[in-house]
Every structure is written in structure tokens, then in C-alpha cells.
């Protein structure tokens, strides 16, 4: 069993595919490391694709613009008052983005109004919201089943309530992720918006991606992304690591 998973990981690397996710056991880790070391040594492996570099530059421009709109408080966690990259006489970042954004489809700005649209409608991969991404690590926890693997096809999502915690699981790009169902603003319970593939807060029009990233909000300060759960698939079930029933 364990050998099969590693073999699949290795063959994914060799075929240039994103490897499947799984809970790694000890003997597997060493072989994965060896495979990664060898695969990374292929000539040219460490050089990014030009399309990727260009596309990420565009996404960063949108990200910078959204931070501008959200104000300094919404910026990263490291410094209380980050000084934006702008010097007197330079184009404002928003203006710069407006120009570069037109070519790239300025989805992040169009129609934003008072809303802080952190990400355009493109589903993958969402931009980072403010604040660090946190994973829930309960002092006492156990693997608890929240769905059958068969009920969670690619692109599928489902809510769960374990009493002690509630959340959503989703399978995207071959990997399963689980996030909290509580809005990080004031704790309202998020609703799964299946057509839009996102989680909506009923209180203040805040939305999160199924992976927990902030998509939009109307708040003076951007709320942090949703906490994640550790998640695994075992014997045809999807399990999250959560506190036991109270």
C-alpha cells in the first residue's frame, strides 16, 4: 500500500504532473526526498516558464492594487505600518495596475466599488488575503470522518459539523482541503455557494475561496483567511483532524 503511493508520487514527478496528496509514513518520506533531489537535478528544471513569470507578475499587480484599496491595515502581518513601494512622482500603484490590468483583464478592479475584491473570478489559484494562513492543531485531536471519498469528486465540496468544529471539505486539483465554517470577521456561519465555488458570509458580504483564502469583503480591515484542518483520505473516507466530541 505504502509502496504503491510512493511509486505513484515518483511516477508523477517523472511525468511532470502534480503529485497526489497523501499522509506520508516514515519509509515513504526518504524515497520521496531522493526522487525530488534527482528530479530537481534535470537540466533546466529550476528555471520557471516565461508564461508563469508573466502571469504571476500580473497577479501581483492586482494584489498590490487590492491592498492599496484596502488601506494599510490590510497589508501583511509583519509590520504594523508597511510603507508601500511608491516614491513621490511615481505613478500610483493603482494607476499603474489600471493600465497593466486592462491588458490582463482587470477583473480585480471592475465593479469593486466599496468592495475589496481580492481576487478576480478566475477560480485558481486565489490570491492571499491578509494575515497568515493558520492550520488548526487541537491539543487533543483525532481523525474524524466527514465525508465519503466517493461523495467528493473533483470540484466537489461539502459541509460538515463535528460538534466541536464545523467546516467545509473540497477537492480541487486532485487534493482535498478542509477549512473552518466560521467567518474570521465576527464568527458568522459561512454558507457554501456551490455555483460560485466559494463560501459566503451571511453577515457582511465577505467571501472566501474553498481553500480558505479571502476573495472579497466590505470591511475596513481585511479579515484573515479561514483556518484549515489537517485532512486525509483513509479507506474511502475523508477525515479531518479535530477535537473529539465534547
Amino acid at each position, binding site marked *: 500500500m505504502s509502496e504503491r503511493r510512493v511509486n505513484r508520487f515518483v511516477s508523477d514527478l517523472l511525468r511532470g504532473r502534480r503529485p497526489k496528496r497523501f499522509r506520508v509514513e516514515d519509509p515513504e518520506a526518504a524515497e520521496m526526498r531522493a526522487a525530488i533531489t534527482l528530479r530537481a537535478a534535470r537540466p533546466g528544471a529550476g528555471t520557471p516558464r516565461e508564461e508563469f513569470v508573466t502571469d504571476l507578475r500580473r497577479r501581483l499587480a492586482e494584489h498590490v492594487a487590492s491592498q492599496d484599496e484596502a488601506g494599510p491595515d490590510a497589508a501583511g502581518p509583519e509590520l504594523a505600518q508597511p510603507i508601500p513601494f511608491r*516614491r513621490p512622482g511615481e505613478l500610483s500603484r493603482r494607476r499603474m495596475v489600471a493600465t497593466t490590468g486592462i491588458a490582463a483583464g482587470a477583473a480585480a478592479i471592475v465593479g469593486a466599488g466599496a468592495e475589496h475584491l481580492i481576487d478576480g473570478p478566475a477560480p485558481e489559484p486565489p490570491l492571499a488575503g491578509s494575515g497568515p494562513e493558520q492550520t488548526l492543531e487541537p491539543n487533543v485531536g483525532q481523525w474524524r470522518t466527514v465525508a465519503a471519498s466517493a461523495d467528493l469528486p473533483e470540484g466537489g465540496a461539502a459541509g460538515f459539523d463535528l460538534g466541536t468544529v464545523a467546516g467545509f471539505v473540497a477537492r480541487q486539483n486532485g487534493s482535498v482541503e478542509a477549512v473552518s465554517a466560521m467567518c474570521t470577521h465576527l464568527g458568522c456561519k459561512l454558507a457554501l455557494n456551490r455555483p460560485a465555488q466559494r463560501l459566503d458570509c451571511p453577515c457582511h458580504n465577505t467571501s472566501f475561496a474553498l481553500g480558505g483564502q479571502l476573495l472579497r469583503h466590505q470591511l475596513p480591515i481585511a479579515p484573515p483567511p479561514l483556518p484549515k484542518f489537517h485532512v486525509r483520505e483513509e479507506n474511502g473516507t475523508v477525515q479531518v483532524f479535530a477535537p473529539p466530541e465534547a
Partner: protein
Amino acid sequence: MPHTRLRLVGDDAYPDWEAVYQDNVDRVYGMMFAKVGNRADAEDLTAEVFLAALGPLRVSATVGEVRAYLSATARTVLAGHWRRHYGREITMLAELPEVPAPVPDDDVDGDPPVPAGAAAAAEAAELLSGLPEKYGQVLRLRFLQGYSVRDTAAALGISVSNAKVLQHRALRRAAQLMEEVAP
């Protein structure tokens, strides 16, 4: 303070976030690919690093500080990737992989002195040199040269199924070797 030089050295500041990005995207991607071994994850993690780091960066930060901050962010992002998707950290970025600021006199235009692939190639070469010849051959063909199993079998004059078995055994041995070398 040097003002007129256009190339970037450790004490200079970047003019804007785009300069930060252009100067560091190759390096961050190279670091990530060396630790995940596939393009899709390396791209996602590179994006995550820049998206996470851009907010906190100050315009006054020096090139050296920015690179150090990006490296620290990359370490955190990589650790999160493994824990989130695999339940544990499979590979880690070393604490101080920091490329020293280029020496002004012989560095032509701010390129990192060590190409991203060089360290990975050296590590793999050392690993392969510690293996029996057949093991080294099969791993070199499959991983470094991108041969299919079929082509590998032909090159080694063995059957396809034997090539598969040989690859598995070779990789297992390589893994053991790495474990022994690792602290």
C-alpha cells in the same frame, strides 16, 4: 553610498515591487523546484511566497534584506505545503541558503552568482556516485535525462519490467544513502 550604479548589490534598495519580483522570481522558483520536484507545485509555492511577502516589504529595505525576507517566507510556505498536503515536512529549505550579495567588481549585472540548478545538480551527482553502477545508470536515465521506462530498458539492454524493478530498488538505495548522510 553608491547612487549611480544600476545593478543591485546588497546595500541598495529596490525601486519598486516589480524590481523585487524580476530580480528574485527565478531564485525563489529554483529553490522551490529543488524541494518539490514538480512544476505545478513549484509555481504555486513561488506565487504564494511573493503574494505573502509583498505586503510587509518596505521600500527602504535593502536588496539583502528583501532576499532574506523572501527566503524566510519561502521556508514557511514550503513547510506549510508539506504539512497541509502530506501531513509532515518531506523537504526543508536550509536556514541560511542566502546567496551572498554579489561582489560589485566581478558581478556583471546582478545575476545570482550560483545558478539555481547548480546546487541541485551537485547534490544529485554526489548521491549517484555513491550507488552501484546499474542503480546510478537507471536513475540518471529516468530522472536526469527524462527517459521513459521503455527507452531506459532499451538503453540498459533489459526488459521493461526489469527496468521498473531496477528503478525501484535504485531509488530505495538512494533514499537509504541520503538518510545516512543526513544529520
